[in-house]
């Protein structure tokens, strides 16, 4: 009795916390449904491909700029520090390892979340408030499968490709910064990069992008699919998609870093 009272008081004093846990629970159920439906026919391969094309093209310009700048800035910032410790020759390895293991996957996922999760939230939210999702349902078509499964799958598959592209550009950006200050040749730089990179550096970073892609798709779809209250609801779905997806990416990354270090050390 006392415990129930305390619980009620605690939750009534922290509505934001209650809302957060409710969202996490609902989002988990929403995401679990994906695994239930993704293997059941009919398969919407055409829709998945269409979304992958759209998401890839939409995100390409911003990740191109970001990827290049990450490498460039990382090398420029690190060079004086490495020099101070007499470790300047390790600069290519440091850039490559930082980008491939952590910066590339996480920053690409955060940019992807900002660009894509909000778009999915707004698109599905708009379809919800204009009864397009209801129209699909009354036509005996499963809207979750057609709208949600295809988008989550597209995000999960396209983010690893984008991350590889970002990693490549960041490494190139790093070389440009080093070349401009020390005149290091491209051949020497790439030799240093490939000598330092191991299989255990590439795989964890690559694998976690699938998880991040899934988070971006699932959060955007969840927020949009459950939007209400007209255009205000659509705006809210769009904004909260980005916030929730970004937060989840960082939290999940923290766990995944620990797991991957434990698995691949």
């Amino acid at each position, binding site marked *: 009795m006392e415990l129930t009272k305390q619980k009620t008081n605690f939750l009534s004093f922290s509505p934001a916390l209650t809302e957060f846990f409710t969202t996490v629970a609902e989002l988990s159920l929403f995401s679990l449904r994906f695994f239930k439906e993704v293997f059941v026919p*009919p398969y919407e391969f055409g829709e998945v491909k269409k979304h992958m094309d759209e998401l890839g093209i939409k995100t390409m310009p911003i990740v191109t700029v970001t990827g290049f700048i990450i490498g460039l800035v990382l090398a420029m910032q690190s060079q004086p520090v490495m020099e101070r410790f007499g470790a300047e020759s390790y600069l290519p390895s440091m850039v490559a390892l930082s980008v491939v293991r952590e910066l590339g996957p996480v920053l690409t996922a955060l940019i992807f979340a900002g660009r894509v999760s909000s778009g999915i939230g707004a*698109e599905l939210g*708009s*379809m919800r408030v*204009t*009864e*397009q999702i*209801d*129209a*699909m*349902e*009354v*036509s*005996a*078509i499963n809207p979750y499968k057609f709208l949600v499964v295809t988008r989550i799958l597209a995000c999960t598959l396209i983010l690893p490709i984008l991350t590889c592209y970002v990693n490549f550009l960041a490494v190139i950006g790093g070389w440009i910064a080093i070349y401009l200050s020390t005149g290091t040749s491209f051949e020497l730089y790439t030799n240093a990069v490939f000598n330092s990179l191991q299989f255990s550096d590439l795989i964890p970073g690559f694998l976690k992008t699938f998880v991040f892609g899934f988070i971006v798709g699932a959060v955007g779809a969840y927020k949009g699919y459950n939007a209400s209250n007209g255009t205000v609801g659509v705006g809210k779905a769009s904004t909260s998609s980005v916030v929730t997806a970004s937060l989840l990416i960082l939290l999940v990354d923290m766990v995944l870093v620990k797991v991957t270090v434990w698995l691949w050390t």
Partner: protein
Amino acid sequence: MDIIEIINLSKSFDDLVVLDDVSLKVKDGENLVVFGKSGSGKSVLLKCIVGLMEPDSGDILFEGKSILKMNIDELNEVRKHIGFLFQGSALYDSMTVRENLEFPLVRNFNFSEKEREEKVKAVLEKVGLSDAIDKMPAELSGGMKKRIGLARTIITEPELILYDEPTTGLDPITTKEISQLVVELQKDLKVSAIVVTHDLICAQIVADHAVVLKDGKIRYQGEMKQLTEADDPFLKNFFRSEVFETT
């Protein structure tokens, strides 16, 4: 034979009772108009029929079978025999008119591409918008959207069509055109219909029978002509204000 029978249906949202013990029947080939003020539960009634909302109690029989006791696959089979025209048309705005019309055909039926093309052209001709085939919904006017919505509803040849405010927001001339189209479809395709509206022009054109909902309960059920001549003060007041609004 009754195509649909609603038995003692009730639905509430928290403390707000939207439908209270509503019972009605629609016969084969009949157009039933459901009248009522905004918020009187008309749209909720339609959404319960197609399984978009679950009623608190009561039953809904489609051709004698209870919709509420069906699993999702059985419900989807029934949905293939029911068309639904939404208030805002609910056209898929990322698809062209052709893709909107083909959408249910591709996923629910085994028509060849040629058969689908013929069906799309036939329904567009029926609603008088053959030249809109490759347009996007954003390029259409309100009346055109309603017509395309109607075309998408009839392309699967349903046995029952549910119209949710089919003429809301349209001018009187387009209202008459859409209403006449509803009657033509009833005659040509021999479909039954439930038309939810508060538009008297539309109701007078399409109704065989009418039902008036007030505070979730049925206030009147019977012939349309008798309804407009009824002595009930609420009905008199309701229709006087509707005539005022629509003229």
